[in-house]
């Protein structure tokens, strides 16, 4: 097996037992013993051991034969919809700049679309040194296959060491496909990025098990190191119209434009005009709202605050709100600046979808509701009295 305990070094301190997320280690006769039927080779024990007594090694030579030194620079996928660059791209460019200073390398954006050249300049204003621009009528909207084929070719040609993409519905589908085709590592939905300068590696931190644990992941021997990054965890740089950069136009190949899937229609639902993932403030309602009509109080508050409307699973399953508004395990994961949980008790399935919000405001009549355990501010009271009063108050403050 690729994991083993070096008995001479093991002190039986049981730090590894505590670190194991799979309960696979016990101490027997003052030495750690790994139950290989439970072990998932995740490596948590290796980093926890202070005596370097646990070895985790690959048992064959790697499939990778690439020369790591050939790979230079950080790329950001500049996702556009209707020729509008998605806000997460600005956040990624800012983070990429910070990482590039540590690595002493350049930041490039890749923009694919149709007649989006003006937007390429904007990417430079927000932090890109170079923009690779690919334009074609058939690339107006995202399609899995053409976008994948083009990016795979450009990555092979220019060899970036890091490739970042927003953890959007497009991003997560696209880069999963690219990483497989390139045979490289991809870490989903990161909330932290840093550089291990000594090894020149990207440290990618992400929540797992619904945010109950965090894992830091590396891609040591394959390139590029790819990650999708959650919205709102990094801040964009201010726009600098004097920033200079280079735009490199790349023509798509005819065969790359072939797609076995085609978009027949794009439907924008009015109720989803404020994108939950991009919203700074979300006002969510749950079972405590009691009816569809009562969601009006939530919508009024959201309107004043320019916020998006969210809902718990209970509210969605009751038919009070469409599924696209659902926050939680089987809905969306959000992390706005302020999250209002109104009449939501705070079951774990809901908490995993919103507990990384900066400020959580809970309004609930039950003082024992678990939502108060994660709340930054809480009001125990009748939401039908509290929320309209709050709406009125914010109207005064914001003069809206």
């Amino acid at each position, binding site marked *: 097996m*690729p994991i083993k305990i070096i008995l001479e070094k093991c002190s039986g301190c049981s730090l590894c037992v505590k670190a*194991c*997320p799979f*309960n696979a280690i016990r101490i027997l006769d003052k030495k750690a013993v790994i139950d290989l039927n439970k*072990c*998932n*080779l995740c*490596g*948590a024990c290796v*980093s926890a051991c202070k005596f370097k007594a646990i070895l985790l090694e690959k*048992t064959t030579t790697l499939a990778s034969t690439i020369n790591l030194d050939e790979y230079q620079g950080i790329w950001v996928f500049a996702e556009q919809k209707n020729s509008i660059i998605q806000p997460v791209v600005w956040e990624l460019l800012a983070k990429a700049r910070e990482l590039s200073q540590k690595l002493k390398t350049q930041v490039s954006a890749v923009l694919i679309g149709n007649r989006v050249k003006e937007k390429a300049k904007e990417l430079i204003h927000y932090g890109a040194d170079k923009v690779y621009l690919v334009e074609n009528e058939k690339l107006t909207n995202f399609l*899995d296959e053409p976008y994948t084929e083009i990016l795979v070719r450009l990555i092979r040609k220019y060899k970036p060491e890091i490739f970042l993409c927003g953890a959007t519905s*497009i991003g*997560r*589908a696209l880069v*999963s496909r690219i990483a*497989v*085709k390139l*045979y490289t*590592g*991809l870490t*989903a939905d990161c909330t932290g990025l840093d550089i291990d300068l000594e090894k020149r590696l990207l440290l990618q931190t992400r*929540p*797992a*098990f619904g945010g109950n*644990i*965090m*894992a*830091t*992941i*590396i*891609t040591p*021997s394959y390139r590029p190191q790819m990650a999708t990054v959650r919205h709102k965890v990094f801040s964009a740089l201010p726009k600098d119209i004097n920033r200079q950069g280079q735009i490199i136009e790349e023509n798509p190949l005819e065969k790359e434009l072939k797609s*076995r*899937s*085609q*978009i027949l229609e794009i*439907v924008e*639902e009015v109720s*989803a005009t404020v*994108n939950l993932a991009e919203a700074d*403030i979300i006002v969510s309602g749950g079972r405590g709202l009691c009816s569809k009509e009562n969601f009006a109080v939530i919508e009024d508050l959201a309107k004043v605050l320019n916020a998006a409307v969210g809902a718990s699973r209970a509210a969605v399953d009751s038919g009070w709100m469409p*599924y696209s508004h659902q926050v939680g*395990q089987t809905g969306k*994961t959000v992390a706005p*600046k*302020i999250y209002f949980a109104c009449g939501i008790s705070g079951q*774990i399935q809901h908490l*995993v979808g919103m507990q990384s919000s900066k*400020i*959580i405001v*809970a309004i609930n009549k039950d003082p024992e509701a678990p939502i108060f*355990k994660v*709340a*930054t*501010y*809480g009001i*125990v009271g009748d939401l039908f009295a*509290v929320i309209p*009063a709050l709406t009125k108050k914010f109207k005064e403050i914001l003069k809206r």
Partner: protein
Amino acid sequence: MNIIVCIKQVPETTEVKINPQTNTLIREGVKSIINPFDMYAIEEAIRLKEKYTGKTTVITMGPPQAEEAIREALAMGIDEGILVTDRSFAGSDTWATSYTLSQAILKISVFDLIICGKQASDGDTAQVGPGISAHLDIPQVTYVKRIREVNQGFASVERMTEEGYEVISVSLPCLFTVVKEINEPRLPSLRGLLRAKQAKILKWSAKDLGLDEKKIGLNGSPTQVVKIFTPAARPQGMIFHGETAEVVEKLAEALKKEIV
């Protein structure tokens, strides 16, 4: 129509608790379930079979006990189950997992449609579904909320986006990942439960699939976990008590600088 559903056995999240002394996950005695999103994939496959006839096969990669998840899918009405299991699969990341599953699917050989849940509730990556379609070089549609029609080698589906949805036409064979909105999974029938109990489940090892040991498990995984830690607990919050006007005043004051 031949439909393959890929599922994963996961711990039931509601029961994942943190040991306050050691700050680690307590997994002992945690019930295992089929990943909630995969339930919609199973249901959709059964519905498509009911509508268009054909065969449904469920496939999972996991430890021997993942057999329970397969039996549960059979009880709902899936025709056949395959468990891809081998010690050498341990430590697989999404690249190695999607490679292994894609090779098992090639061994099944005849398929029109592969359906996966949008993501698994333990890993939350949403990478294995698209990874499988990339390995197989077939088209994919992610976040499918409705399958409108399957006809003459094409399917038209609705793909959920941040702003609404897109109607997409795609040629078969292809892979879909599905979201909750697509259906409401059925409960197993008594007959289904009996059949599932007696059903023979195929078990395939790395050797059965003729896999390259460089591409599976820890060996084949480009990513590597270097550290696992518990996130900092949220600081103790402030609960306001009293008359509505008073508490609203206090809350508005506290939020003022964030909102203005």
